[in-house]
C-alpha cells in the first residue's frame, strides 16, 4: 500500500517539479547569456571583452586551456600571463567538470542542438562514429601544431569561427560550420560534439577527476531507458542502465551509481526526462 501511495504523489507532483527544476531551460538561458555577453562588448559595455578563445571578464584574463597548450607547443616558449590565464580556466573546469564548457558555454553546441531538432521530424540514418576518435584527433592536432609551429585547431575551431563571424561579418569560414551541421543532420547525429571536437576531448580528459557528477538511484530506476535515448550524443548512461545486467541484480548493489566517464556535458536532458526522478546531480565519492 505504502508504495502505491508514494508513486501517486510522485506522479501528481511531476508537472510542478518539472516546472521548477527544468535544468534544460536554465541551461539554454546560460548559453544565450554568453552570446549576449559577447555582443555586449560590441556595444561598448565594459563587462566582457574578447572571444571564447581568450577573454577578459571584469578584468580577469581567461584563456581556453587547449589553445594555451597549442600556443605553448607551437611557439616553444612559455609566456607567463598566458599560463596564468589558461591555468585559471583549467583549474576551474577540472574542479567542477570540464564539459560544462560544452553544454553551457560553447555557442556551437547551442547551434548544433537547434539544428538537431530537424532530426526529430525526419527519420534519416545515423552513422555512428567512435567516441574515442576525438582523443586521437586532439593528439594529432597537438602534434601537428608542434610540428608546423602554428596552432592548427584555431583555423577551424567552430566557436572561434562563429564569434569571429560576429565581429567582422560572415566570410568563407562559415562554410566549415555549415558542412559540419549538414553532416550532423543527414549522416551522423551530433558527430562533432560527440566524437570529433578536440575541445570536448580535452575537457573530457581533465574532468575525469571532477566530483560533480550525474548519478542514478538504482532503487527507483525502472530501466525505461528514456535517459539513454536523450543522451544519444554521448551514450553516457549505457553502463548504468544496461539491460543485460538485469535490473533485479543491480538492486542489491550500491543504491546510487555515478557516471565517472568525464564525457558528460551536463546537459541535464536525462535529469529532465526521467519519470521516476531517479537521476540526481551533485558531489559524489568514488
Amino acid at each position, binding site marked *: 500500500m505504502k508504495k502505491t501511495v508514494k508513486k501517486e504523489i510522485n506522479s501528481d507532483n511531476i508537472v510542478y517539479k518539472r516546472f521548477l527544476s527544468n535544468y534544460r531551460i536554465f541551461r539554454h538561458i546560460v548559453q544565450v547569456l554568453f552570446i549576449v555577453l559577447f555582443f555586449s562588448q560590441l556595444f561598448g559595455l565594459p563587462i566582457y571583452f574578447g572571444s571564447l*578563445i581568450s577573454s577578459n571578464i571584469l578584468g580577469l584574463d581567461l584563456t581556453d586551456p587547449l589553445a594555451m597548450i597549442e600556443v605553448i607547443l607551437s611557439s616553444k616558449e612559455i609566456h607567463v600571463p*598566458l599560463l596564468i590565464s589558461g591555468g585559471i580556466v583549467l583549474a576551474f573546469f577540472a574542479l567542477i567538470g570540464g564539459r560544462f564548457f560544452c553544454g553551457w558555454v560553447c555557442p556551437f553546441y547551442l547551434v548544433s542542438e537547434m539544428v538537431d531538432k530537424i532530426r526529430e521530424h525526419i527519420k534519416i540514418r545515423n552513422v555512428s562514429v567512435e567516441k574515442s576518435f576525438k582523443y586521437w584527433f586532439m593528439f594529432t592536432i597537438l602534434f601537428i601544431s608542434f610540428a608546423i609551429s602554428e596552432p592548427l585547431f584555431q583555423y577551424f575551431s567552430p566557436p572561434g569561427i562563429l564569434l569571429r563571424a560576429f565581429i567582422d561579418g560572415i566570410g568563407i569560414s562559415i562554410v566549415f560550420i555549415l558542412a559540419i551541421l549538414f553532416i550532423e543532420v543527414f549522416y551522423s547525429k551530433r558527430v562533432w560534439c560527440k566524437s570529433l571536437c578536440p575541445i570536448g576531448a580535452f575537457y573530457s580528459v581533465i574532468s575525469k577527476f571532477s566530483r560533480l557528477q550525474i548519478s542514478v538511484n538504482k532503487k527507483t530506476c525502472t530501466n525505461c531507458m528514456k535517459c539513454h535515448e536523450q543522451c544519444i550524443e554521448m551514450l553516457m548512461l549505457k553502463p548504468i542502465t544496461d539491460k543485460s545486467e538485469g535490473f533485479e541484480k543491480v538492486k542489491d548493489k550500491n543504491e546510487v551509481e555515478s557516471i565517472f566517464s568525464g564525457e558528460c556535458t551536463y546537459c541535464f536532458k536525462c535529469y529532465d526526462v526521467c519519470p521516476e526522478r531517479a537521476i540526481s546531480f551533485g558531489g559524489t565519492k568514488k
Partner: protein
Amino acid sequence: MRGDEKNIESRKDFFRRAALSLIGAISGYSFYKLFKRKSRTKNYVIRPPGASNNDEEFLSKCVRCAKCNIACPYKVIISADAGSIAAIGTPYLNLREGHCRLCGDFPCIKACPTGALSGEKVKKPKDVTMGTAVITNREACLALRGLRCEVCYRVCPFIDEAIIIKETLNPFTKKHTIYEPIVHKEKCVGCGKCEEVCVVDEAVIEILPLMRGDLSKHYIEEYEI
C-alpha cells in the same frame, strides 16, 4: 519487378554517390579556401604594432582570439577570414582602408594574451616596427612626375623625420623642381597614413614589411608581379 527494384536501387546508389561526391567537392573546395593563405596581389601582411617582424614567429604565437581586433578603438585591425591575404583568424591591417593611429597606450598590445603582440620593445609610438613606407609605383607618383603633391609628407606623424622632401632639378624641363618624398627606413614606423591618403587611385606609396637581411629578394618579387 525485380529489375525495377534493382533499377531503383542502382538509381538510389547513384544519387547517393553523387551527393557524396558533391559534399566531398564542396568540403574540399572550402578546405582549399580555408587553408589558402596568400592572395595573388600581395605576398606579405602588415600586422598590428608589437608583432614580430618574422611572420612565422608571429603565427606560432597568435592564438586567433580576435581580442586585438575588438580592442582597437579605430577598428582598423581586421581578423582575417578564409581566402583573404592573411592566415585565418590572424589580425592584419588593410592600410588603404584605415591606418594605425599609434595610440600611446597600445590597447591591442595590452589585449594580447599570448605575447604575439608584445610590449617589450614597443613602449612609445616611435618604437613601432610594423613596416616601412616605399614608393612602389614610381611611374605613377605625382611628385616624381613633377607636380608638387607632398601629401604623404604632410600627413606623416613623423614629418621631416620619417619622410623628407628632396628637391632636385626636373631633368625634362631643366627649369622646374621635383619635390621627391624620401622615406627614412629607420624612422618610419609603418603606420600607413601615407598609404591611406595617397591621392592616386592605387596607392603608389605602400607599407612593406621590414625584412632583416635579404631585402633584395623581396623587391624582386614585387616587380615580378
